[in-house]
């Protein structure tokens, strides 16, 4: 399959020797949705800035749409669309004016601009708000316009940098639908950075997990979870149950895990949920609740970095 994005040993150092991206390799196939997952400060946005030619790399190389990001910047920009982390819009311009400006800067002819503007406004559901100034748009509307601007010149590759951060569930769902539609109907390759596990799970064909500027895991979400492989059983002790007694009962089934609610054990193959239930029953240990957790991407992150992705925050 044709490669849309090819990255080799990409590094970006900032002043003071800070390595935001510390040598990453990745390949994104044409027509694929690639989820780039990591906590704040992991290097996601720096990677996107390099791949979209906004920031020269310190070392390494990358080709986007077949063009070298350093030597063929203008060609890369003609090939890609990008909605960056902040929906940078001019509060004094209307949605329609934004689109016309974007289209004209992409060299689209005046008559085609009119048609394409209408088409894009319709697609992102902003037809009725087209002539309102951006200052009056909601966060969701701004994100939708941002997406329309990124799609204005029909790019083959789309970069979306945390596109749903701060959006309400309805707007988030609408944006997910549009991303899926772009891949399905137009074959657009999507490089999507996110810190939301669910987003990567729902949208991405493959996921790359980045931490401290390095890719710590890569593959399909199913494969990554299978790699972790082991579900966790979490038990919430009943009021009259001793937590220590519960821990002792669960310990033979695997490694005990931190749990805020009760006692959790990651099963290591010495029994399944039924065996756990039998053990609790034979020990007359009462539990208020019992859960079986299938592995999540957070478990993958935890396994690879020793930290949980959710709630892991570092300033970028």
């Amino acid at each position, binding site marked *: 399959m044709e490669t849309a994005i090819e990255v080799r040993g990409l590094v970006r150092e900032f002043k003071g020797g800070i390595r935001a991206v510390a040598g990453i390799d990745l390949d994104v196939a044409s027509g694929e949705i690639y989820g780039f997952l990591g906590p704040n400060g992991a290097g996601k946005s720096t990677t996107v800035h390099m791949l979209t030619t906004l920031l020269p790399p310190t070392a390494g190389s990358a080709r986007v749409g077949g063009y070298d990001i350093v030597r063929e*910047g203008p060609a890369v920009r003609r090939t*890609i669309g990008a909605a*960056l982390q902040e929906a*940078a819009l001019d509060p004094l*311009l209307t949605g329609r004016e934004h689109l016309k400006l974007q289209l004209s*800067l992409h*060299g689209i002819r005046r008559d085609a601009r009119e048609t394409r503007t209408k088409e894009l406004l319709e697609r992102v559901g902003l037809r009725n708000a087209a002539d309102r100034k951006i200052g009056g748009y909601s966060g969701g509307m701004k994100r939708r316009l941002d997406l329309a*601007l990124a799609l204005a010149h029909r790019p083959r590759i789309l970069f979306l940098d945390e596109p749903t951060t701060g959006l309400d569930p309805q707007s988030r769902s609408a944006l997910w639908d549009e991303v899926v539609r772009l891949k399905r109907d137009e074959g657009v390759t999507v490089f999507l950075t996110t810190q939301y596990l669910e987003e990567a799970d729902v949208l991405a064909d493959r996921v790359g997990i980045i931490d401290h500027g390095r890719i710590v895991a890569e593959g399909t979400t199913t494969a990554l979870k299978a790699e972790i492989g082991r579900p966790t059983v979490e038990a919430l002790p009943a009021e009259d149950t001793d937590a220590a007694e519960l821990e002792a009962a669960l310990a033979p089934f695997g490694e005990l895990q931190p749990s805020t609610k009760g006692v959790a054990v990651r099963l290591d193959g010495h029994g399944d949920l039924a065996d756990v239930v039998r053990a609790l029953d034979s020990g007359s240990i009462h539990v208020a609740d019992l859960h079986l957790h299938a592995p999540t991407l957070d478990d993958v992150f935890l396994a690879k970095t020793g930290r949980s992705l959710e709630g892991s925050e570092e300033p970028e």
Partner: protein
Amino acid sequence: MIGQVLQLARRSVIRTIRQPANWITPLIFPLALMAVNTGGLHAATSLPGFPTDSFLAFFIAFPFIQGALFATVNAGVDLARDIQTGFLNRLALTPMQSPALLIGHLGGVIVMGFVQAAWYLAVALVIGVRLESGVAGALVLFLLAVLIVLAFGSFGALAALRTGSTEAVHSLFPVFFVFLFISSMNLPRNLIETDWFRTAASLNPVSYLIEAIRSLVITGWNWEALGLGFSIAIVMSIVGLTLSSLALRTRMART
């Protein structure tokens, strides 16, 4: 590239129109200050050697320069805001050629400068100021006013591109204002009695910009004053544009 320049200039003009404070202030404030100063300093016309008996005609150059300062700072702030909000990155992601951004941005400033010049001249004529250089002089006056706006505007853009901070651009205004006040704004240089002030005014390029505009109003065709004024405006424009272009290259580090 011309299309890109026109679109960006159009955006700059739209932004100005939609921020009334950005165009009402430059249209009203300099004229208000002129009215106050003219009332207070009218007696200066009786000084021996004062070049005209109308202080209003003498002082009409002031709004042109002050208006240029306003336009410059407002434009610089707009550019700095584009940097702060990431809008510059949005533009950088398009095939836009970098010089188009600067030219388009300054194009908007020039349009504003032209409107201001027309307004100041119209008000001056209505209140009885006579242009000694005639209709041709008015055209030259427009050209010079626009050139001055371009010169100042390029320095506003430079400040925005170097700092990326609206606050830093705002802080330029008092600096420019000092240049304006330590000039031959209120009196001809040869009538300034305080030595250090006369020296400072003579070293201050703004004096020559004012004197060039003033000469068209009260003298007619003073080639020396015009030559100096145009030369300074052109040199300032070239220096400002060159430095701004370099700053833009650094700011837009795209490959």
